[in-house]
């Protein structure tokens, strides 16, 4: 499964990328593991995963149509 990611804030800074396409990502747990292998600094960074603009809290099946975003802790206001 190919997924399209958008990265915000310090996550874009750590990875050097604001967008990313990854292959063979069936679910959100696989996504996290894959990202941690690619960017070890991410393993120590707190972030949430938003699927179609809603934060997910459990392992979730992903599809190519999903809008996936990695969100560091919010600091607006």
């Amino acid at each position, binding site marked *: 499964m190919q997924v399209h990611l*958008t990265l*915000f*804030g*310090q996550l874009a800074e750590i990875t050097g990328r604001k967008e990313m396409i990854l292959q063979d990502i069936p679910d959100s747990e696989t996504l996290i593991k894959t990202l941690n292998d690619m960017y070890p600094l991410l393993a120590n960074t707190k972030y949430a995963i*938003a699927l179609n*603009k809603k934060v997910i809290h459990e392992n979730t099946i992903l599809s190519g149509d999903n809008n996936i*975003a990695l*969100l*560091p*802790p*919010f*600091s*607006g*206001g």
Partner: protein
Amino acid sequence: MESQVGRKPNSMIMSERKPKNIFNQGAIPATFIAESIQKHSTQTAIGGHSIFLGQIRADETENGKVRAIDFTAYEDMAIEKMHVIREDIFAKYPLTCMHVHHSLGEIAAGEICLFVFTSSAHRKAAIDACNEIVERLKAELPIWGREIMSDDSHQWKVNK
């Protein structure tokens, strides 16, 4: 008076409200705030306005002194989430009006980056709603502030 009656919150009207863009490129000028206040003078059912303004602090941190904050956001998600907050707030409080503006881009110390403005017939609704909006906005909207130091190094802002 009829237009005001027509603006009162009720479930039918609420379901028709559309998500509004809350983002503003650059700082929020005091003149914009004045115009926003002035526009409400025709709404004579209003008895109280509550306003919260966020201003950039020149904090002294271990990495230096903050000279600006550069805001970015996941705009689509933030606007959608703000719409949910807006609906919740109108359902909970008898408000006449509610306006929220948040800056994007680099905002210098001393400038305004957040403007929350609520109005109601009696003060309590406007005051309580304004506070709740500020709290929820800071906790729930995907917005990030990158603090830029006087030596141009930076660090990521953390909301407490």
